[in-house]
């Protein structure tokens, strides 16, 4: 079973996880770590490392971060050297819902990460395009 960890700036990670759970129900192999603005990065790294170990049940952990180049992603890149993770940036709610509802159907972490990335991108819409499609 693949685990999922969301890591972001501010409180986004915890809030997006709570929102996802409110919609589809709670899951215990999904975790979140929100790095607050005044947190010590070294301490945050150690705590995230512990959380990663807890979430890795043998098939690795998909890490969803907010933005490439930011501290959450950079910390995860440093941790990726010693752990079985794939990192996908730009976490959004459809991406997370898709990831959480399909995680049990994948064994290959890299394949799962690719699918989640595609779904996250695919589910961003310009609403007027959708509405005009419906009127046709």
């Amino acid at each position, binding site marked *: 079973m693949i685990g999922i960890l969301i890591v972001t700036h501010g409180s986004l990670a915890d809030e997006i996880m709570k929102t996802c759970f*409110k*919609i*589809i*129900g709670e899951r215990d192999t999904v975790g979140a770590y929100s790095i607050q603005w005044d947190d010590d990065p070294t301490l945050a790294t150690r705590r995230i490392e512990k959380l990663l170990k807890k979430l890795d049940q043998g098939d690795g952990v998909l890490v969803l971060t907010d933005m490439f180049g930011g501290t959450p992603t950079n910390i995860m890149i440093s941790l990726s050297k010693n752990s079985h993770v794939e990192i996908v940036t730009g976490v959004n709610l*459809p991406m997370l*819902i*898709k990831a959480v*509802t399909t995680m049990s159907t994948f064994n290959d972490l890299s394949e799962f990460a690719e699918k989640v990335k595609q*779904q996250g991108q695919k*589910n961003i819409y310009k609403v007027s395009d*959708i*509405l005009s*499609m*419906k*009127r*046709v």
Partner: protein
Amino acid sequence: MVEKRLKLVNKLGLHARAAAKLVQLGETFKSEIKISKDNVEANGKSILSVLLLAAPVGTELTFSIQGPDEEDAMAAIDSLIERKFDEGE
């Protein structure tokens, strides 16, 4: 295949939590579930697909279900919608 038009009667229509309940119910059946409205057809076992229908209260959705347990699946979905997704209003 069984096909039926069902009208949404709950106040918020097919919003996120209702869609999740519908999909979770659908996943308990083997049959393939298609939901259509206007020109959009959604996979009844994918929440993101179902949400694309953008269906508020009063919307009529066409359910097309095909498979070994199609009758039971239709009855269960019909009941969930009639029960207003157990949301109370």
